[in-house]
Structure formats: structure tokens, C-alpha cells
């Protein structure tokens, strides 16, 4: 009989537990997909895995809508004058592209879609702390989306996704429908964050101390903190905007003694931390994938873990860097510029630690790893250009130009989205029990990388030469940049279509995946693919860290020997 000495999460004193090895079956008969069948079962499920998949489907749908809008925008920008749509339509398209991508794709994508699936499994738990609340979060997200689409059906939205006053209080577009939609959607984010914090604190399997938590969970924990602290401020901001439109309150209206810059303060107090809601989970995935495909312990575990928390905290102090040219006081702009430099440091620490992890690792260039390398290249550029924008003097010139557009696409798309693709390809076998075609996947990754850089690299140059953002027409000197960028966007489109194709095909005719096709030491890989309804058929006991590749696989498959006595 094996025994393990563990320090359980709650009491902190070492105990000895009787354990035995539970080797996962390579041919599971009952999985979470077969245990509950039919549309009603899915719509009323409280299983975190199915909820995660429902989010995944929704996020994919919204990404398609937002992506088509992007292609339409880029097509219009092929020529300096009108190409095929009117200016007002153009305004609606870039507003909706931004709002859909930020609120309905990027914010929920990694935490709600992938995080929901993986988090309890990485903790060895049966579900999240509040499964019914989890389902409610999903439906709140759907209702928020419905309100936004009602707006589309009415007068649309042309304020830019940032809804700045005074235009947003005066525009004849359907601002209120969207602000209500965003208000509702915010609760989905808040409740998911609450759920994750409670789960990570209270539902860890025996042996998972804070020092043995996978870095993906440190990242989701930091993200959840941001979601809970920042999203309510967005909620009150859109509520105030709604009231300003409906009742003419006037706190943002200069004609009534109000202050439009105040709106920007409130808006960015949420929206800057929001970009860390998008970026920090991406960092978590990178840590998981880079260790698995280097077969090596992460370099600087605590540095990466604590830097997630540092980013979460400092991220709350820098929002004014979106407002350098808005009329903010000189005192505030200087303080914000300085703090913005600080926030780059923990991220830099992460990137350096990841690269150091590769050193003397046994690198396997599977598709998730290719996305990781794309991420390292693209996100670094995005991060550096963020620091450049944070430099007060430079930003006066670069604010509201394509330099900003390129920067945030580099971090949000090159960062969050590429990491999302890495995670999707990494956990796809676990979620579906199927493998996708590796060659097609690699081609897809290459198309994404080439397409992305072709689209956005010229935008840095344009921006620094003065091309303003959100402009429908432009002067001749920028034509070549815009056209290159548009071609890049078409390459991106093809890449995404290819990804959708081979992933869908894998569901029908993909090779069966084993429990652990990548040889990872992660806890989620020590059960069947697809997993059991309750994730594990035993209570896992963890004695090693999640990246201890020098320990044999058997040590990661331990569970309580005697289930009835020790639950």
C-alpha cells in the first residue's frame, strides 16, 4: 500500500494519506459527453465542461461576426476614397467590430471557454464551487448578447466601442440597447470571477498547495480578481451613460457643468484592467504549453506566479494613459506615464522566464508550441510598443493613430487570441477525445502568423507617419500600407477558415486521442480523454509540482486508496 505525505490546502499540517495509482483508461466507455445527452440536457447542465464548450461555441460565433466586420473594414480601406460602403456604415462597422471582439470574444474567451473546462480538472475537483451560478453566468452572457443584437437591428452603434461622451449622449444610434447589454454582460464576468476565486481557494485536491498550483490557475486567479474589482465600475459607468441619455443628468455634459473627461476616467478604470483580463489568462496558457513541449520545469515558478498578481494590481493604476490628450491635468498625466512603465516589468519578467524555460529543454514543435513561439514574438512587439505609447511625449504624437491600433492588435490578437489558439489546440484532445490533422494545423499556424504580421506591421509605420484611426478616407501616401494590411487580413481569414475546417473534421473522423497525447505532467491529463462526468473516478492526491518532468508519470496518477472513509 502506498502512502503519501501531503500538506492539505486548508489546515496546513502534514498528514499521511493512503494512496494508490489510478492509471487512466485509454478507451473510456462513459464520458461527460455520453452521460448527458440531448439539447435540454446541455441547456440545463451544471457540468463545467459542457458550460465551457457552450462558451466556446458562442465565442467562436462572435469571433466570426467580428472577423467578418474586420474584413469588411479592411476591404473598404483598400482605396483612399469610398470603396463600397458609406462613411456612416463604416463608423458602425468599426464600433461593432470593437465592441463584439472586446466584450463577447476576448474577455470571455480564455477564462470562460477554456478556463471553465480546465480549472476544476487542474485542481482535481469535481466541478467549480458554484455550478448553478456557472450556468447562470452563461445565460447572462447570452442575454447581454441579445440586447446588443437588438441594437444592431435598430439604429446600430457608431460611437466607437469606447462610447465617449458627449457624442455617445447625443448620437442617434441605439446606444442604450448596447449599454444595457454591456451592463448585463458584466455580471457574467463578475460571477465567473467569483466562482473561480472560490474554487481555487476551497476545492483543491489533497496536496495541491499554493506552491504546487499550475501557473494557469495563478493566472486565472489574478484574472478573477481583476474581473471582480473592475467590472462593477464598468457597470456603473454604462448605467450613468444610460441615465445621461434617458434623463439628461448632465454629469458628463459640459453645457450643464458636467465633465466629459470624467466619463473617460470611469470607462478606463475598467477598460484598462480589462485588457489584463484578456492578457493574463493568455500568459497562463503559455506557461502550460511551453513546459509540456519542453519537457522541463518552468524557469522561475514564483516569479511568474506572483507577476500575474503584480500585473493585476499595477494594472489598476495606469488607466489615464488612454487619456493623455484629453485635457487631464499635468500632474495626473505624469503620474500615469510613470506607472505605465512599471506595469511592463512583470510582463517582461514572464517573457524572459518563458524563454529561459526553453534552455536545455526537449523541444517538440507540435502545433500548440508553434503558437507559443508566435506569441512570444508578436506579444513582445505589442508589449514594447505599449511602453512607447506610455511615454507621454511620444504619445502626444501617436495617440489616436494607427500606431495604437497596431499596438492593441499585437497584444490582444497576437497575445490573447494566439494563446487561445495554443490552448485550444493543446486541450482539444482532452475535451473531445480526438486528434486533429497535425500538418494542416501547422499550415494554419503559419497562415495566422504571416497573415497577422502582414496586416498589422504596416499599421505601425502608418501610425507613426500620422494616419489617424477610425478614419474612413485617407491621403494617398498611406495607400500602399493600407493595401498590404488588407491583403494580410485576407490571409488571416483563410487561416481561420482552415483551423475551423480541420477542427470540425477531427470531431467526425479524427484519430482517437489517448488520455495524455503530449506526455504532460498536468493533473488534467491524468484522466481519460474525454473525461468522466466527475472528471476523475477517484480523489486525486498530488505530491509533485505540475512541472516536475524529472519525476515518473506514475507519481502524478495517485489517488485516495480508501474512498468511503476519506472522501
Amino acid at each position, binding site marked *: 500500500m502506498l502512502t503519501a505525505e501531503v500538506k492539505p490546502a*486548508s489546515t496546513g499540517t502534514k498528514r499521511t494519506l493512503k494512496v494508490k495509482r489510478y492509471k487512466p483508461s485509454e478507451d473510456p466507455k462513459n464520458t461527460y459527453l455520453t452521460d448527458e445527452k440531448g439539447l435540454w440536457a446541455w441547456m440545463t447542465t451544471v457540468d463545467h465542461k459542457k458550460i465551457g464548450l457552450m462558451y466556446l461555441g458562442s465565442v467562436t460565433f462572435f469571433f466570426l461576426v467580428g472577423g467578418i466586420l474586420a474584413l469588411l473594414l479592411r476591404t473598404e480601406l483598400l482605396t483612399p476614397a469610398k470603396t463600397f460602403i458609406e462613411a456612416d456604415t463604416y463608423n458602425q462597422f468599426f464600433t461593432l467590430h470593437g465592441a463584439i471582439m472586446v466584450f463577447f470574444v476576448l474577455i470571455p474567451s480564455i477564462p470562460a471557454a477554456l478556463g471553465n473546462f480546465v480549472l476544476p480538472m487542474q485542481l482535481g475537483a469535481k466541478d467549480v464551487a458554484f455550478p448553478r451560478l456557472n450556468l447562470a453566468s452563461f445565460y447572462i452572457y447570452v442575454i447581454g448578447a441579445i440586447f446588443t443584437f437588438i441594437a444592431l437591428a435598430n439604429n446600430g452603434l457608431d460611437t466607437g466601442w469606447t462610447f465617449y461622451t458627449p457624442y455617445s449622449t447625443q448620437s442617434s444610434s441605439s446606444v442604450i440597447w448596447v449599454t444595457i447589454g454591456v451592463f448585463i454582460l458584466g455580471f457574467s464576468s463578475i460571477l465567473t470571477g467569483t466562482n473561480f476565486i472560490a474554487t481555487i481557494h476551497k476545492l483543491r485536491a489533497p496536496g495541491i498547495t499554493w506552491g504546487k498550483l499550475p501557473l494557469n490557475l495563478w493566472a486565472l486567479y489574478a484574472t478573477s480578481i481583476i474581473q471582480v474589482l473592475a467590472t462593477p465600475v464598468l457597470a456603473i459607468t454604462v448605467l450613468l451613460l444610460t441615465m445621461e441619455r434617458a434623463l439628461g443628468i448632465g454629469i458628463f455634459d459640459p453645457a450643464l457643468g458636467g*465633465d466629459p473627461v470624467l466619463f473617460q476616467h470611469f470607462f478606463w478604470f475598467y477598460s484598462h484592467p480589462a485588457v489584463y483580463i484578456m492578457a493574463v489568462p493568455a500568459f497562463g496558457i503559455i506557461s502550460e504549453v511551453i513546459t509540456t513541449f519542453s519537457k522541463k520545469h518552468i524557469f522561475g515558478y514564483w516569479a511568474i506566479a506572483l507577476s500575474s498578481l503584480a500585473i493585476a494590481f499595477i494594472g489598476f493604476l495606469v488607466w489615464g494613459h488612454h487619456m493623455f490628450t484629453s485635457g487631464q*491635468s499635468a*500632474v495626473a498625466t505624469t503620474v500615469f506615464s510613470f506607472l505605465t512603465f512599471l506595469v511592463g516589468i512583470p510582463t517582461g519578467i514572464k517573457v524572459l522566464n518563458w524563454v529561459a524555460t526553453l534552455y536545455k529543454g526537449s523541444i517538440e514543435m507540435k502545433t500548440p508550441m508553434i503558437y507559443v513561439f508566435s506569441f512570444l514574438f508578436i506579444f513582445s512587439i505589442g508589449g514594447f510598443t505599449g511602453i512607447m505609447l506610455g511615454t507621454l511625449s511620444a504619445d502626444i504624437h501617436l495617440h489616436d493613430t494607427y500606431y495604437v491600433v497596431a499596438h492593441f492588435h499585437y497584444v490582444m490578437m497576437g497575445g490573447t487570441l494566439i494563446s487561445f489558439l495554443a490552448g485550444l489546440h493543446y486541450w482539444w484532445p482532452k475535451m473531445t477525445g480526438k486528434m486533429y490533422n497535425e500538418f494542416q494545423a501547422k499550415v494554419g499556424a503559419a497562415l495566422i502568423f504571416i497573415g497577422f504580421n502582414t496586416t498589422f506591421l504596416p499599421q505601425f509605420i502608418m501610425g507613426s507617419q500620422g494616419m489617424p484611426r477610425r478614419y474612413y478616407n485617407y491621403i494617398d501616401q498611406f495607400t500602399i500600407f493600407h493595401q498590404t494590411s488588407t491583403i494580410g487580413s485576407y490571409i488571416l481569414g483563410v487561416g481561420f477558415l482552415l483551423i475551423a475546417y480541420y477542427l470540425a473534421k477531427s470531431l467526425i473522423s479524427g484519430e482517437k486521442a489517448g488520455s495524455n497525447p503530449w506526455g504532460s505532467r498536468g493533473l488534467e491529463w491524468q484522466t481519460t480523454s474525454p473525461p468522466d462526468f466527475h472528471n476523475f473516478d477517484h480523489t486525486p492526491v498530488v505530491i509533485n509540482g505540475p512541472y516536475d518532468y524529472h519525476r515518473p508519470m506514475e507519481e502524478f496518477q495517485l489517488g485516495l486508496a480508501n474512498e468511503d472513509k476519506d472522501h
Partner: protein
Amino acid sequence: MSTHNHEHHISTAGQLWAVGTTLFILTIITVVVAKFVAIPPPFDVVTAISIALIKAFLVAAFFMNLYWDVKFNAMLLIMAVIFFLLMISITLLDTMYRNDVVPSF
């Protein structure tokens, strides 16, 4: 296995009434001070908020049981207050140091 076994603290009725009564008295004090004691601004706000903070502490510690609860929950409350203070102080760095109070056009 149960994760821990701390007893859920049960206040006596007397204790709860004592806290309640203190809160009532503090309410009366804060009204009387505001209406009948001349304090120059900004100290009038400081006084009122200080009394409110004492009341809030009593509610949080003895009605919401934070005094006997796991320290983590109290830390959550403190963290929320800290972030709120950060929000207002940094925003005031802008609004209090402008040349024009409100951008006029």
C-alpha cells in the same frame, strides 16, 4: 475527511442588541454634531465620515461576524476599500489639478 472544524460563532442576543444600540447612539451623535456643532470644513466631513467608519466597523465585525471569521474574508473587504480609495485619489489627481475645472469650449 472534513477540512476543518471551527465552531460557527453564535453571538448572544445581548451582544447583538448591544451592537445595535451602539449604532443607534452613534447615529444620534452624528446628527447632533452635524447640526449643532460648528466645525470648519473640511473637518466637518472628516468627523462625519469617521463616525460612519466606526459604525461600519461595528456592522462588519459584529453583525457580519468578521471578528470571528477566517481572516481572508476581512482581507477581501479591506482590499475592496483600498481599490476604491485608489480610484478616487488618482482621479482627484486629475480633477483637482486642472486649470479649468471643466473643459469649456
